[in-house]
């Protein structure tokens, strides 16, 4: 169980012959993820870690009926790779690539919405349902199966907190990163809805950061919909001076909304417990349950 990915996933890897694509394909295979084929235009007919490589998604799907694709293609071509997967009716797309041009991402997401596909990322560490399926670049050993769903805007910060949960014997149902680019396929609310429906998930960890108003909207949703599972949050960027860009466009403080204090306030009023340091999340989860 868990959400979005489980044992039934049969994946292809787009950009499988690149350094990252190849490296993480090996790790995903080792984790037990079923990867049927890889796609790299121009490298069709070769093999990577025993996985056959095709020139096009269409060609791969003539041999295998994959239902997910994980994308490691360089930024200028990544949105096109995702469109290729979507047009070939793959329903779940995980885009690891970061720094996709906004215009390309906007086009892609509109298409994904039209065909009702799920896009995770871009600029995401991916998604893992521990011991069932890993489609991502997260270090696998820091996760263990359990009842806590995790959703995050940040990659490495997710690992930080997941590792801390695992050390405290709190297992995870599914962990996923929304992605750090300005336009992403999923937002917190989409994922919270999925966690609510998932019987394995008992409580949820939400990892936000400064910039934008996704956390505020999520707080509103939790309050309004009377969200039925306990939520613990951590917001990065308390110490950020206003107006400075911290890494990606997501991290611009805009007026009142977007700042850490505002987000923390909004979440607290919605009944969410907010951790001060990453390591506090595990403690608050204990209290939340």
């Amino acid at each position: 169980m868990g959400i979005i990915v489980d044992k039934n996933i049969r994946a292809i890897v787009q950009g499988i012959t690149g350094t990252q694509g190849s490296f993480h394909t090996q790790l995903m295979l080792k984790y037990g993820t079923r990867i049927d084929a890889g796609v790299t235009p121009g490298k069709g007919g070769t093999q990577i870690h025993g996985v056959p490589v095709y020139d096009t998604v269409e060609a791969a799907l003539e041999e295998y009926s994959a239902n997910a694709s994980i994308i490691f293609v360089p930024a200028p071509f990544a949105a096109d790779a995702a469109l290729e997967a979507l047009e070939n009716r793959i329903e779940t797309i995980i885009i690891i690539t970061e720094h996709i041009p906004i215009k390309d991402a906007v086009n892609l997401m509109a298409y994904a919405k039209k065909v009702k596909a799920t896009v995770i990322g871009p600029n995401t560490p991916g998604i893992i349902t521990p011991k069932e399926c890993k489609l991502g670049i997260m270090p696998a050993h820091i996760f263990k199966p359990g009842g806590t769903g995790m959703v995050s805007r940040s990659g490495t910060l997710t690992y930080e907190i997941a590792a801390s949960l695992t050390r405290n014997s709190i297992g995870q149902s599914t962990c996923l990163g929304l992605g750090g680019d300005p336009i992403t396929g999923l937002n917190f609310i989409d994922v919270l809805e999925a966690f609510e429906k998932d019987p394995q998930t008992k409580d949820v960890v939400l990892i936000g950061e400064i910039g934008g108003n996704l956390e505020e909207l999520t707080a509103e949703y939790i309050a309004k919909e009377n969200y039925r599972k306990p939520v613990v949050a951590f917001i990065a960027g308390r110490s950020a001076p206003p107006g400075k860009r911290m890494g990606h466009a997501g991290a611009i403080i805009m007026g009142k909304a977007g700042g850490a204090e505002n987000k923390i306030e909004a979440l607290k009023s919605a009944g969410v417990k907010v951790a001060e340091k990453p390591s506090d999340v595990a403690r608050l989860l204990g209290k939340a349950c």
Partner: protein
Amino acid sequence: MKLFEYEAKTILAKYGIPTPIGGLATNVSQAREIATELKPPFVVKAQVLVAGRGKAGGILFSESIPEAGKAAEKLLNMRIKGIPVRSVWIEEKIQIEKELYLGITIDRVNRSHVAIASAVGGMAIEEIAAKAPEKVIKFLINPHYGFHSFHARQIARKMGYSGKQLVTLGKIFEKLYHVGMDYDAELIEMNPLAETFDGEFVAADARILIDNNALFRQQEYKKRLLEGESELTVQELEATRNNLAYVKLDGNIGVIGNGAGLVMATLDTIQYYGGKPANFLDVGGGATSERIATALDIVLSDSHVKALFINILGGITRCDEVARGILRAKEKVGVTKPMVIRLVGTNEEEGKRILTEAGIHVLESMEEAAQKVVEISKQ
């Protein structure tokens, strides 16, 4: 990447959007020459990228050519928020009856571009947006169907315009959209778009922010960015050249990490334990050892840095690569400042081995490491 006002106005003019007639000068005689070609009164505007230029005295008005020369001289010898003014834009002053706002930016929640308009623009726009949001018209643009002049006319009508003015505004707004798309603008705005006493519209000020991720297809500006014409510190420039996300802060603990969220949380944790970060530096995903070495170079070149905190949680980034990068930087620049290194994740064992063998101590807990570096920074 921010464009200068003169760059933005030149682009808008190329697309047929009315802008004030003007020219760019980097010295006083040039400024006078430009003024000779124009009709007084003039506006002389410092070309800097920092916000709040007007309030900082970066915009001067003058009635005559000699006055314009003096204004240019004054500005060219000025620093605005610490940034030296390298050029000024001299243009004919517009007789403004009313200031509007027209812009296009990204709506992250709706995953689309959004057209924004207000009949009350200029300095007041932010206040209006906060206090009377109903006066700001927002229109989500479907990327597959585009933004057409009729959309713009529907907006113009909501702004209270009709007749010829509505048609003109429609055309201007549609053109603004095309500029935005063609230049991969993350934000493009005319604020104010001036309505003159005879009912015409002129882009009195213009701002274009190009999506950094699309600079590969906006070569002209990418080049300009790297040529250092923009207002960057030595460290920021070096970071930009190497595609590293770097922000200068005012403390004394240099920070390097992978992933914006983790680096921010690292800064937060340093502050939580009473320390002061000197910078934000995110090496991003999958950094090679060269990249790590460059990052160390940049952070250590800041004389305020007293101690260094490297916080790596490997996913796509491999700890062995990071370890090699640290050694490489140590060899090359001879790191003498104290370093606290926290290294876990992908290829963690190999990374730790490399550093330990080189006599560098590695910690596993971020909070322990943060406490340690704060302690060192206070010695």
